[in-house]
């Protein structure tokens, strides 16, 4: 392996970020777009080259794919506890390199058309490059601390990009919300890192994840409330992951994050950053699996399953197409978490892990495609609302076909990509827990309904009276759509299981025919329901919503989670704790400081008069002092 080439993968976007960021006003949009796209193109080529080297040339070493690490010591705390900076190459990081670089490349190309004429064009590309750099750094991290650093960097770039339209109040609010919520979750992550570092004495993934190593064979160095401290550490780390991956109840920032430009939503809030949480759990999977017999993993599974169902229900009721896609993303992320949560470790036991990564891979492709299509539609009709759209298939054929392929993929209709990964997930869950399988299959049906609801709403339905006749997007925008559509249709055929499994040995994957039939049947059922309800705008929908009554209202209001948060923050945190803290800060802390300052001022005003500037006053003081000292000495000596 050529490590210097791998290190270039993150460094090129960093260089692009610096160049574009520093020369923001000096270069025109054409140049900055070209720099951005060519930078990420280079990174993409290098990523594919790395994948070829890793899987093709290096291959398996004694039956398993090796973990290749190249790092330098950055900070030394003790002999073993240190922070390194480096690159770690193993199957999932290589896979993530492919995902991030491919989607990022497509989004860069797409943005050249989408952002055309925008005032902050260069700024946009520099932020995109910053994000790409951070994401590469995250997937290549060799230890917990490095991943944490890049974790925060993606958080920052996400904040910057959500707030890209910084003159829009809602965008600023959304950016702050995303930052604060994920930051809050990252507090858990940090405490988890420190706990694990303290009790194991290392941050290194290699040492932490060694299934035969000292750490995992002795996983209870201390216990707290009946659980091993390592379990607590892993749960806290999962809280961090849940914050980034928008798991319930930390999901509230993701729908609001759709205030950012649509390419950003496609790249960050659908394909790459939000899967960082899944990636984190996968990265630490041996720890999750072996520590306390996978107790923390159970939590991951249940949180994932609940989030998947919760988000799918809300997605059914939203009218903003980007928000529907956001909740859909959350639901699919729940799927991935669920699959990780039910996975085993050895050989084909690791089906859940494999399918989770597989779904991450396929989902990145088709969800990015969905967002880019949505962006194309929004570009054409200048609205996010479903009610402003209809019959667009006549105006935008390429977008229409691409969206259809992506919708079929996410719904799990063979032979599109989503079918293969989702099927593997359902098989893995079924082998583990039938209750969770029930949730999974229900979510599969709901997925088909909500995605075809917006599909029919956008491209069929009634013809609206458009102010400007909508037209197909320029080729810079349709080209990525076509590429991603082809990928969404075909990536399912990659024999993923032979590349990726928890113990890295790989196994022979196969399609479980009865399970597949059930899943496809449910998906088709959902598709059918959507067909009946939404293909033509009919009375049935409103009658149905009336019938559901409270349930519909609740789902439409996102189950009032936001309101709950607002209540907690505004009434309890702000009024109760923060007010007290503010009072303390203003009166006690500031008061002390002001007292010191003011008394110094008053004192100096008083003694200023002594410095009259008259020589004779000084002489007087000098003489009296000398005389007093002389008298003092005389009587001390003589006595």
């Amino acid at each position, binding site marked *: 392996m050529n490590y210097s080439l791998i290190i270039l993968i993150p460094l090129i976007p960093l260089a692009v970020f610096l160049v574009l960021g520093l020369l923001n006003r000096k270069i025109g949009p054409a140049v900055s777009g070209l720099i951005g796209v060519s930078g990420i193109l280079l990174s993409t080529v290098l990523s594919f080259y790395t994948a070829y080297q890793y899987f093709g040339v290096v291959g398996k070493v004694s039956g398993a794919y090796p973990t290749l690490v190249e790092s330098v010591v950055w900070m030394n705390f003790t002999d073993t506890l240190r922070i390194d900076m480096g690159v770690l190459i193993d199957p999932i990081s290589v896979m993530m390199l492919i995902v991030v670089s491919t989607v990022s490349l497509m989004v860069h190309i797409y943005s050249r058309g989408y952002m055309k004429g925008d005032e902050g064009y260069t700024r946009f590309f520099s932020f995109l490059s910053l994000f790409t750099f951070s994401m590469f750094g995250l997937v290549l991290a060799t230890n917990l601390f490095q991943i944490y650093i890049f974790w925060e960097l993606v958080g920052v770039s996400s904040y910057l990009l959500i707030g890209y339209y910084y003159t829009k109040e809602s965008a600023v609010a959304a950016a702050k919300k995303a930052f604060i919520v994920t930051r809050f979750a990252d507090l858990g992550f940090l405490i988890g890192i420190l706990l694990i570092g303290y009790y194991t004495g290392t941050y290194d993934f290699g040492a932490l994840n060694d299934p035969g190593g000292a750490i995992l064979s002795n996983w209870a160095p201390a216990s707290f409330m009946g659980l091993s401290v390592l379990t607590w550490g892993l749960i806290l780390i999962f809280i961090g992951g849940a914050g980034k991956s928008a798991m319930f109840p930390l999901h509230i920032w993701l729908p609001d994050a759709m205030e950012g430009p649509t390419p950003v939503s496609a790249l960050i809030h659908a394909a790459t950053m939000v899967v960082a949480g899944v990636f984190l759990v996968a990265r630490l999977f041996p720890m999750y699996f072996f520590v306390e017999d996978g107790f923390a993993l159970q939590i991951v599974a249940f949180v994932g399953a609940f989030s998947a169902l919760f988000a799918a229900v809300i997605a059914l009721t939203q009218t903003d197409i980007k928000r529907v896609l956001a909740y859909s993303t959350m639901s699919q992320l729940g799927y991935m978490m669920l699959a990780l949560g039910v996975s085993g470790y050895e050989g084909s036991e690791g089906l859940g892990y494999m399918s989770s990564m597989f779904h991450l891979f396929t989902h990145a492709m088709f969800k990015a495609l969905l967002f880019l299509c949505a962006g194309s539609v929004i570009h054409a009709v200048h609205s996010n609302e479903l009610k402003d759209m209809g019959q667009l298939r006549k105006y935008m054929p390429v977008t229409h076909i691409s969206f259809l392929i992506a919708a079929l993929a996410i719904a799990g209709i063979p032979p599109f990509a989503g079918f293969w990964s989702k099927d593997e997930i359902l098989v893995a869950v079924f082998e583990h827990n039938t209750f969770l399988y029930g949730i999974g299959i229900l979510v599969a049906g709901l997925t088909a309904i909500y995605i075809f609801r917006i599909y029919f709403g956008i491209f069929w339905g009634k013809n609206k009276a458009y102010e400007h006749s909508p037209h197909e997007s320029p080729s810079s925008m349709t080209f990525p759509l076509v590429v991603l559509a082809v990928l969404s249709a075909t990536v399912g055929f990659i024999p993923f299981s032979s590349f990726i499994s928890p113990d890295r040995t790989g196994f022979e994957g196969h399609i479980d025919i009865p399970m597949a039939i059930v899943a496809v049947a449910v998906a088709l059922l959902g598709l059918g329901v959507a067909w009946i309800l939404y293909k033509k705008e009919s009375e049935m929908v409103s009658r149905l919503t009336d019938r559901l009554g409270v349930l519909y209202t609740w789902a439409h209001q996102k189950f009032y989670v936001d309101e709950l948060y607002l209540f907690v923050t505004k009434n309890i945190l702000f009024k109760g704790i923060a007010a007290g803290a503010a009072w303390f800060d203003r009166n006690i802390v500031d008061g002390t400081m002001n007292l010191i300052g003011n008394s110094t001022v008053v004192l100096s005003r008083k003694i*200023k008069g002594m*410095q*009259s*500037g*008259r*020589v*004779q006053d000084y*002489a*007087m003081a000098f*003489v009296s002092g000398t005389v007093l000292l002389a008298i003092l000495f005389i009587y001390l000596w003589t006595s």
Partner: protein
Amino acid sequence: MIEGISIYELLTVTSILFFIGIYGFITRKNLISVLISVELILNAGAVNFVVINKYLYPDVLQGMIFSIFIIAVAAAETALAISIIINLYRKISSVEVRDVETMKY
């Protein structure tokens, strides 16, 4: 040494002279008067040198030579002080001490 006069009497006189000079230095409000007071202080010191030389170590001349130096320095100091006073008078038309307090603060 002076016949019949002890060193104590001489030193008493110079001490009184010295403190009169200090009193003048502190209380006078005019720069020239301050200068006069300084001359008194210097003279008290010079006489002291001479007296101690004469009474305690009559064989050597150190005290006396020091007095000569004191007189020379006093002359230089007076010349400079007078020139400063004259210059000041040209600039601010006053030789009062309280008008010359830009050292303040």
